[in-house]
């Protein structure tokens, strides 16, 4: 197999962290150390000891035995919680630091983007910084000259191009920095969370640019915390955890697993022991599930398809009017909606004891893409009382495709808002001089 773009085999990285957790020390120890340690350190220098400061037996493995392949043209996401080794892996692949074990092979011209504006100098003008930063990112002078106008236009800094960047606003500075990076055209691109800077408008612009680059058939390894961005940019995602590859597969699946492990919840939650289930001596919650249109439990939902919120509960005492309800939150903490049960069969009707299953269907083309958290609750009317309220009971992920028939139409960028309804749009063509509507057949 000679056509693999990135081949990673058993990569491991050990960091020495010195003696961080030293035990109790007396002042005398400290004084002795004060006198002795310069001598010891000098001795350490001469021995080329790899950790000149103190004992070196303390080490952590940031990565351990990481292996995967990336085919040319693949756009692969790399996710994992903080400290999972994502950035370390990217630094090894971009040759900034060496692995302790294992090997990797990269075929093709490689570019790295661990931050935007690396090497920018405040005293230099925008023009000078474009050339400097371009050279640092690995572009030739001819390449930069060719793309110069485009970079300036993308950054929207035409007027200030000959002003030192120290006089730029932070927004202008970031735009210019990203504009240079966005015109880097290697065959293989390694990107860290460079999109996590700037305002929302700027982030959208960056993301759209990244999408454009991805469509040009380049191999991209993309590290991010922004799950909607990962699922949108990358068909495939690798989940890193505890220094190793925990999962490698289609992005929406991996993102779903990651989110559910991160939040500790998934699309299905049960309380098998009634005594420990949330609730009161009147009602107890027994299970919350998310169902796709085929009725199966589903963690990821196509934006165009309905999703069912289902709760199972035991009513332990007869004679109450019970109102089950759901609240749905997105990852920004916004409550997208709350809905109470409106099934006419149970309206105003006292319920007898037993197991109940309530399901509420959210129509397709209603929720916005992203991760959603579902809270389940039940009230009684008389006496008015909330019996349980399980805030993040289940979690699911809504995926927006690019097939053109979702509410995003042909728009490739990020759409905001907590919901994304498919509205009833009409557009009429008026004649060129605007005198009146043209009859359409």
């Amino acid at each position: 197999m000679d056509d693999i773009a990135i081949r990673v085999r058993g990569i491991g990285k050990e960091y020495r962290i010195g003696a961080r957790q030293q035990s109790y020390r007396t002042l005398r120890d400290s004084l002795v150390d004060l006198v002795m340690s310069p001598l010891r350190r000098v001795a350490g220098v001469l021995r080329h000891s790899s950790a000149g400061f103190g004992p070196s037996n303390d080490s952590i493995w940031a990565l351990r035995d990481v292996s995967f392949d990336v085919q040319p043209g693949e756009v692969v996401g790399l996710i994992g919680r903080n400290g999972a080794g994502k950035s370390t892996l990217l630094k090894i692949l971009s040759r900034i630091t060496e692995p302790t074990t294992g090997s990797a092979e990269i075929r093709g011209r490689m570019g790295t983007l661990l931050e935007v504006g690396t090497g920018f100098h405040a005293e230099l003008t925008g023009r000078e910084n474009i050339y400097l930063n371009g050279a640092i990112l690995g572009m030739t002078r001819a390449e930069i000259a060719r793309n110069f106008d485009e970079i300036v236009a993308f950054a929207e800094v035409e007027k200030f191009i000959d002003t030192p960047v120290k006089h730029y606003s932070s927004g202008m500075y970031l735009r210019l920095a990203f504009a240079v990076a966005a015109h880097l055209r290697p065959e293989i691109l390694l990107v860290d969370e460079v999109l996590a800077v700037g305002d929302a408008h700027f982030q959208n612009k960056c993301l759209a640019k990244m999408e454009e680059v991805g469509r040009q058939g380049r191999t991209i390894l993309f590290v991010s915390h922004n799950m909607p961005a990962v699922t949108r940019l990358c068909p495939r995602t690798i989940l890193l955890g505890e220094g190793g590859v925990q999962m490698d597969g289609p992005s929406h699946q991996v993102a779903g697993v990651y989110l559910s492990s991160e939040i500790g919840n998934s699309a299905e939650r049960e309380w098998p022991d009634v005594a420990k289930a949330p609730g009161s001596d009147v009602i107890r919650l027994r299970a919350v599930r998310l169902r796709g249109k085929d009725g199966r439990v589903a963690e990821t939902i196509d934006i165009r398809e309905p999703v069912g919120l289902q709760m199972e509960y035991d009513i332990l005492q007869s004679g109450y009017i019970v109102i089950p309800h759901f609240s749905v939150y997105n990852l920004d903490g916004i409550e997208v909606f709350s809905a109470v049960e409106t099934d006419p069969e149970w309206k105003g009707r006292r319920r007898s004891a037993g197991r109940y299953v309530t399901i509420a269907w959210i129509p397709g083309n209603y929720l916005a893409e992203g991760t959603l958290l579902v809270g389940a609750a039940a009230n009684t009317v008389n006496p008015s009382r909330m019996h349980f309220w399980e805030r993040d009971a289940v979690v699911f992920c809504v995926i927006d495709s690019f097939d053109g028939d979702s509410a995003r139409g042909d728009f490739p960028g990020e759409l905001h808002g907590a919901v994304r309804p498919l509205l009833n749009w009409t557009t009429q063509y008026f004649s060129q001089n605007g005198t009146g509507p043209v009859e359409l057949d």
Partner: protein
Amino acid sequence: MNEPQIQSFQTRAVGAEERASGSAAIIRIEPSRGWVSLKLGELWKYRELLYFLVWRDVKVRYKQTVLGVAWAIIQPVVTMIVFSLFFGRLAKIPSDGVPYPLFNLTALVPWNLFSNGLNHVSNSMVDSSNLIKKIYFPRLVVPIGALLSGFVDFALAFIVLLGMMLYYGMIPTVNVLFLPLFILLTLITSLGTGLWLSALNVRYRDVRYIVPFMIQLWLFATPIVYPSSMLPEPWRTIYGINPMVGVIEGSRWALLGTNTAPGPIIIVSSIAALALLVSGAYYFRRMEKTFADIV
């Protein structure tokens, strides 16, 4: 639902790979062991980056200073005046038959190239830590760039030196053709020492405090305020182990025509300087793998 798109990504990319496969570079990443190669070929490939780093340093060096580039001249001239007063006038130190100020400035100009270079090179890796942690390039580019950016200052100071020679009516002989050799020797000494110190500086920030002190001592260990002809042979030749001795004696011989027969000193100094450069470069490359982790 994304399937068709993925397919088209891949087919297109394979085509691109085929086009590029003629020159497709394979980068192998694995732990290095022991002494590693200097990779001078790769260094050459990054010469454009070297150019831009030098260009940046030169452009930025005297920004926001009142006197600007005049500093490049003030430094050696003021030092020369002070040294001429104390060592020439008061201490009456001999100067190989040349007016003392000229004798002194001829040494100070290459000395400043050396000491400023050493200072910049020693701190270069630490000062460029944000680059080193964020992007790959042959790390040797940084110290070499720091060394070369001092060359503009040297050129300006050298013009002042030529003016001084005219003032004293001193016309250089054909020996002046050897001058580039001594400038090269200065750069080699500065870079060789600086490579050792810059690599050490990454781990031990003490270097930042050692360097100015070391330069001060080194100045007096070099025949700048006095002629090496004060020493008897064979000590004078052995003195050449300090490569700057060869540089200074050579420069005086080339520019002022001092009749001190510096040949043996220069040979010893050249060997010492090359030993410093080669050992410094290998030490630097050996330590390089840890730079990004600890800088």
